[in-house]
């Protein structure tokens, strides 16, 4: 090891894994948005070991052939390490004239991008951005361009610590944590397990390509996505009134979306049409994603800086991401200086992001930056509100278990029935414990008391067998969560009415489908029973369960090879795939492996209602 790639052309055709040579620091953002990044020279970081490699993702990206075995061989391991095991030569190194052997340095620079971050005192994005990450480059395969970036590659001058303390830090400086430029294996594993599960369940997300492990649990975590731009990449330049760079970022982003065939409209009469199309796309994406987050109980700290999310609504930075087991609507993450938003406030933050893009579109079109408040009644925001409710309705009928054809039928012909059901569904979903707000490990919370997944799973099969409604007592018995205390479960007159409404509204939807199709009520209920048992599986992953799973995997790690970790993550995400249309075939696995998986399942079960 220690050999660093000299140039792309030297290597293509000579190496088995020649595609890796294309990830060499070069990136179109560098040239198209010069004001949006910093560039760093980098050197090879010795002592790394491949702890994890995502063979499936590497195939999607064209880094390895489709038929490649899920096994690391010495050539592949060397390629991974030579491509990704690097550390930047930062301002501290240059000021202190740290000696770096020439043969250890990479021929191209690597960029750290600038974006807005609320932790920075500047609040305008002049000093913030990738604080401990660099972009390795991009790679195009099968009509998709992928961005690749790595976390833990050294301290850049865009970290909060550097700007708050007004000094450049040496990479690995033990006096600070986040600002030291390093990352840990645990962070990589958390992202790996969470992102693979959420990815399988239809969420857009960054994905872990590789984890390179070093001594003391440190690591470089390599991630990939077809577009790693965040709203905050735009907002910094918007705040600063930097029209030129803002326009460059927009044009760069639009070009990538068109290249990756993400947009249906690809040509525009003029700039106005183009930039307002961008704003509408953002409104669509963020209305859909905030509705999905709310319905799937995903806590993603959306805020005015647009930092914790990708432009396509993809999840990035899993540090504060959670999936709740119940609708814990008042959970707030405690970030020392402030509390986060709640799951219900995400919608407003998402709407604000869309509003910012209307402001951007107007700014780029007129050359004048108007106050954001001037756009609060803009047509695109009205569209956002409509789209959000539409998404909520669609998510609900999907969650009940209706198949696509029936979802469309209900949505197009009987929307009022969905709305009616949603009202009573929300009544139970949002019911909270009388215990009130209290402190939890990393924030504050007020417990939700009902588990909607349980009633969605059980109601169709019980109705199918007995063909009569549940009594209020039975309904409560099924829906109650472990958080509910006796006082929370009192069957009041209002609750009795709601229990009745819930079941009647459910039946009305089934009857509507019966009327419009050739299926009998029994057939529809049977289908709902089968689909709902997958969608609303008893043991669904939560943020807490991921934390414990990562702890468990870390304990096992010394004995787990990169291949085994890949197989484990794959098996786990497949078990948590809650798509009823996806046929899963149980695979024969070794008893040792089976034991590990059983352990992981029991963790998921134990934490299923938590945070």
């Amino acid at each position, binding site marked *: 090891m220690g050999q660093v790639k000299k140039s792309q052309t030297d290597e293509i055709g000579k190496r088995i894994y020649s595609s890796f040579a294309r990830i060499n620091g070069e990136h179109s953002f560098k040239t198209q948005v010069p004001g949006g990044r910093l560039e760093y020279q980098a050197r090879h970081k010795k002592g790394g070991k491949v702890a994890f490699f995502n063979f499936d993702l590497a195939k999607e990206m064209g880094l390895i052939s489709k038929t490649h075995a899920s096994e690391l061989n010495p050539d592949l391991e060397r390629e991974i390490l030579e491509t990704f095991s690097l550390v930047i030569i930062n301002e501290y190194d240059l000021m202190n004239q740290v000696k770096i052997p020439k043969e250890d340095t990479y021929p191209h620079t690597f960029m750290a991008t600038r974006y807005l971050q609320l932790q920075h005192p500047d609040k305008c994005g002049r000093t913030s951005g990738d604080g401990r990450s660099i972009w390795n480059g991009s790679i195009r395969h099968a009509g998709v361009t992928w961005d690749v970036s790595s976390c833990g590659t050294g301290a850049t001058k865009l970290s909060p610590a550097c700007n708050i303390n007004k000094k450049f830090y040496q990479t690995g400086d033990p006096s600070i944590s986040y600002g030291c430029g390093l990352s840990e294996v645990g962070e990589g594993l958390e992202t790996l397990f969470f992102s693979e599960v959420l990815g399988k369940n239809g969420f857009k997300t960054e994905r872990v390509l590789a984890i390179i492990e070093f001594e003391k649990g440190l690591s470089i975590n390599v991630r990939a996505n077809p577009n790693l731009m965040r709203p905050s990449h735009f907002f910094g330049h918007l705040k600063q009134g930097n029209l030129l760079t803002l326009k460059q970022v927009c044009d760069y982003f639009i070009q990538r979306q068109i290249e990756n065939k993400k947009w249906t409209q690809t040509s525009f009469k003029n700039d106005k049409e183009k930039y307002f199309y961008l704003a509408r796309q953002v409104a669509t994406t963020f209305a859909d994603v905030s509705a999905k987050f709310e319905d799937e109980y995903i806590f993603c700290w959306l805020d005015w800086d647009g930092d914790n999310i990708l432009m396509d609504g993809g999840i990035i930075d899993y540090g504060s991401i959670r999936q709740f087991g119940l609708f814990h609507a008042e959970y707030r993450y405690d970030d020392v200086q402030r509390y986060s938003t709640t799951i219900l406030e995400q919608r407003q933050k998402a709407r604000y992001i869309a509003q910012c893009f209307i402001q951007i579109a107007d700014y780029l079109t007129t050359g004048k930056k108007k106050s954001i408040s001037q756009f609060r009644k803009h047509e695109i925001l009205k569209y956002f509100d409509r789209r959000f409710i539409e998404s909520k309705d669609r998510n609900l009928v999907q969650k009940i278990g209706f198949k696509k054809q029936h979802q469309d039928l209900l949505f197009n012909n009987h929307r009022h029935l969905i709305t009616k059901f949603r009202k009573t569904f929300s009544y139970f979903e949002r019911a909270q414990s009388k215990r009130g707000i209290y402190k939890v490990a990393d924030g504050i919370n007020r417990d939700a008391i009902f588990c909607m997944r349980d009633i969605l799973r059980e109601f169709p099969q*019980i109705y199918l067998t007995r063909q009569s409604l549940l009594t209020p007592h039975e309904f409560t018995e099924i829906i109650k969560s472990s958080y509910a205390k006796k006082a929370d479960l009192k069957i009041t007159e209002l609750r009795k009415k709601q229990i009745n409404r819930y079941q009647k509204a459910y039946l009305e939807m089934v009857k509507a489908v019966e009327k419009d199709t050739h299926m009998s009520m029994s057939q529809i209920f049977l289908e709902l*029973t089968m689909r709902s048992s997958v969608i609303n599986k008893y043991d669904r992953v939560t943020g807490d369960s991921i934390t414990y799973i990562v702890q468990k995997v870390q304990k096992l790690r010394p004995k787990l090879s990169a291949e085994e970790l890949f197989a484990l993550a794959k098996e786990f995400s497949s078990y948590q795939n809650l798509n009823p249309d996806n046929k899963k075939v149980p695979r024969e696995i070794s008893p040792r492996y089976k034991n590990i998986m059983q352990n992981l399942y029991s963790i998921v079960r134990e934490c299923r209602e938590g945070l």
Partner: protein
Amino acid sequence: MKLVFYSGGMAKENQNLDRAFIELLGKKNPVVTFIPSSSYLSEEEFRAFVKHYSKFKISRFIHFPVDIPFDKILLQEVMRSDAIHLAGGNTFYFLNSLRKAKLLPQLKTFAKRGGVLTGLSAGAIMMTENIEMAGYPEFDRDENTVNISNLSALNLVDHLFFPHFKNSKRYDTVFKKYSKIHQKVIYACPDGAGIVVNGEELRFIGKCYAFSGGHKFSIN
């Protein structure tokens, strides 16, 4: 008691056993509960089960995994169903889950009350006195992943049951030896074969074998 012991195999091979099961049910529009041996991917098994038995005009099914907590409302419906099917899988894990969930006595009552209880492979072994057969023979056994030592099961019949039997010397040697030292007769059934119990009557479907007192007998 009304019991059906399925050995295993493809749907087509089990046509006769299925017919016997439907006869035992003797009821229009029955409710059938599917109990998987493990909840892991059991939704897929349930779907296949429903698809298969829908052919017999059964349309009311309950999916009831027992290794995850369940509420008493669903349990009541299960015990009220017309038939309960115990699925195949790891017999040790299945028994452990049934015992932990305190379901063994309830299933016994269900069968004694006249409900049709069917079992496939591990599920069929579960209806016998104990699940020792799951650990036999050494070259074809379930792993005791849950390390249980109490192997006593539902004990609904007077015989032992061995599924997926292959008519070969290797198996013969093992079971002849076993039957020499154990009193109960072992009925060994290849895939597609099985036993139907209706009260005192025992009916063998397909080619079955019995091992008793160190000897092997062919049935059918």
